């Protein structure tokens, strides 16, 4: 019998240790096991208020799938960890979901920064992910992501609904101001809007502000001095409310005013009657009259006793997209990736369809406007009349 060399012995030992550890980390999968989908969600920390709605959407989707007998005879199981609203924690948890829990695919976290961080983990492990609540399209511009797909409408089109309304109702109002945050998502949206506005024959000026800014008085003075009639704000909620309040305080009444977060219910609390006539944009509205949407809203109401938010709808939609991919391709990750990259898939948000970079192109934002304390979808297929011009601030 040939004696093993020291190097051969070491090699065998390493192989045995490696096999033991791998087996310990990942249990062999059988056909009876559930299909695992992993999610890192911000169950605590600054995003927790909104992320819990996401969790509800995921759980509702998995319950419905399992009630119908699962996918290919296998139940689905969503493994959720709390990333504490921290992108680095989200990335570590995604690695854990993939390596230890054996998640076949990753359901996106809450927010663009955490999606961006988890994108690194899923690229490395080659696991498909849908960025459920990631509107920031620059995530897919900054680097080539093959395994992440944007599930949320792209922020590039933040001003689109408002500009369409201006086209329809604008009349003599020709001077537009785009206020934007010096952040990639807002800059990209501003660039898109500038080109579109010029194409529409509008005189347009862009006004940037630093992230965290709360004082917009000087920007407002510049807007007033330029004789601007239309204002569209493309920043986060907090600066948007600050800008709006300071416009009210200045007594400056544009003909039409849009801020991208306006559809959020908090706008009514923050602005009271002054919310009337303000345009916003929404990824999803419960009032959209499609059979699939109606069924989702009814089932959500039956389970949670309230109308779903867009967070829950986006999460439910991400589940639907993966459901279609898993039905078509089984648990082969590469095949699922290919399916997501090339197919148009129906969901409660609309038809999921991404471009070559993985950015969402199948559905854009809906235009909304506040009428009598309620945010309605306007334009497009909506029959809701548009308030034009905006009522004067009170």
């Amino acid at each position, binding site marked *: 019998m040939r004696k093993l060399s020291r190097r051969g012995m070491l090699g065998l030992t390493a192989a045995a240790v490696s096999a033991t550890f791998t087996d310990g980390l990942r249990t062999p999968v059988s056909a009876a096991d559930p299909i695992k989908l992993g999610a890192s969600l911000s169950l605590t920390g600054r995003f927790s208020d909104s992320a819990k709605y996401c969790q509800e959407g995921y759980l509702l989707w998995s319950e419905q799938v399992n009630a119908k007998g699962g996918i290919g005879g296998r139940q689905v199981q969503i493994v959720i960890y709390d990333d504490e609203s921290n992108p680095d924690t989200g990335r570590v948890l995604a690695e854990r979901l993939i390596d230890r829990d054996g998640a076949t695919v990753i359901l996106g976290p809450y927010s663009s920064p955490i999606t961006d961080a988890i994108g690194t983990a899923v690229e490395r492990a080659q696991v498909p992910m849908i960025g459920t609540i990631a509107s920031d399209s620059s995530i897919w511009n900054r680097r080539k992501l093959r395994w992440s797909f944007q599930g949320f409408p792209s922020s590039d089109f933040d001003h689109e609904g408002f500009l369409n309304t201006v086209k329809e109702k604008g009349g003599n109002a020709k001077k537009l101001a785009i206020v934007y945050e010096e952040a990639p998502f807002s800059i990209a949206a501003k660039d898109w809007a500038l080109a579109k506005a010029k194409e529409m024959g509008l005189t347009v000026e862009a006004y940037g502000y630093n992230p965290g800014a709360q004082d917009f008085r*000087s920007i407002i003075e510049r807007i007033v001095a330029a004789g601007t009639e239309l204002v569209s704000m493309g920043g986060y909620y907090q600066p948007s409310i*600050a800008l709006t309040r300071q416009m009210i*305080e200045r007594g400056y009444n544009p003909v039409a005013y849009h801020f991208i977060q306006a559809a959020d219910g908090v706008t009514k609390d923050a602005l009271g009657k002054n919310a009337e006539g303000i345009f916003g944009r929404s990824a999803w509205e419960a009032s959209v009259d499609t059979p699939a949407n109606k069924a989702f809203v009814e089932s959500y109401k039956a389970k949670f006793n309230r109308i779903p938010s867009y967070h829950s709808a986006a999460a439910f939609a991400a589940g639907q997209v993966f459901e279609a991919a898993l039905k078509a391709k089984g648990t082969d990750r590469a095949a699922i990736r290919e399916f997501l990259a090339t197919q148009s898939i129906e969901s409660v948000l609309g038809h999921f369809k991404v471009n070559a970079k993985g950015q969402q192109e199948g559905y854009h934002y809906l235009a909304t406007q506040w009428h009598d304390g309620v945010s309605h979808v306007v334009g497009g297929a909506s029959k809701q009349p548009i308030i034009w011009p905006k009522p004067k601030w009170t």
Partner: protein
Amino acid sequence: MTLLLQLVANGLVVGGLLGLVALGLALIFGVMRVVNFAHGEFITLGAFATYLLVNNLGLSPLLGIPLSFVLGAAVGAFVQTVIIAPTAGRPELDVLMVTYALSIAALGLFSQAFGGDFRSYSQGPSGTLDIGGVVVGWRSLTVLLVCLAFGAATMFLMQRARIGIALRALAQNRDAAATCGIDVRRSELLAFSLAVGLAAAAGSLVSLIGTVTPNVGHEWVLDAFVVVVLGGMGSIGGAIIAAIGLGLIHSFASFLLDDSWAKILTYVLIYAALLVRPQGLLGRADA
């Protein structure tokens, strides 16, 4: 001319609020030689207190201003007694770390209690005042008037009241003041309570014109630190002048330039001012 006056009015509102925050910081540093990193969280305290008052109890936000001041003063007295006073005599860096830890802990508490979402209310003064084409909203005007009132009251206290004289004596020479019979612990307790009360009142005003989040105080306190340095560390009058100056510079610069350049220009001017007067506008050279 109208535009010029409009920019002045805008600058005064921001400067006034900044001054109110800086006043407390200057008071704490002047009397106690403590750099209070937790000052931003006391602003947050006032902002949330007012929000709860309006949203949960249906009261006017104007009532929130004095109530926040009182609440802040009470919390300040507690923090001074339980956390800051026991560190007396320790190196300045130790005390600085204590206030930093307090800031982190308070931020965590606010985040746990209220989550990260923005909160806001629409109740309170509404409408605008038009004076010869210069338009100021009643909310902004309220902020300006309240800041003026608190600033004047604090200056009066420091210049005329017995306790104010004691605080100034402490700021000038701690040992000599103690030798003259000034109760150092009591004076420090009062200074810290007053400063925190002012911060909480500023927070109440911030909630009136902006939104409320656990980070809302941080957004103001960084500029307030700059104001304190520019005014002269510990100088109350200097802090007020620097705050108004900063508000006006920023108002004009961000009208003429974009926001980023305005910020750069503002800080270049501050740097230049400190090169000419390292002790700040009204600071003493030996401070």
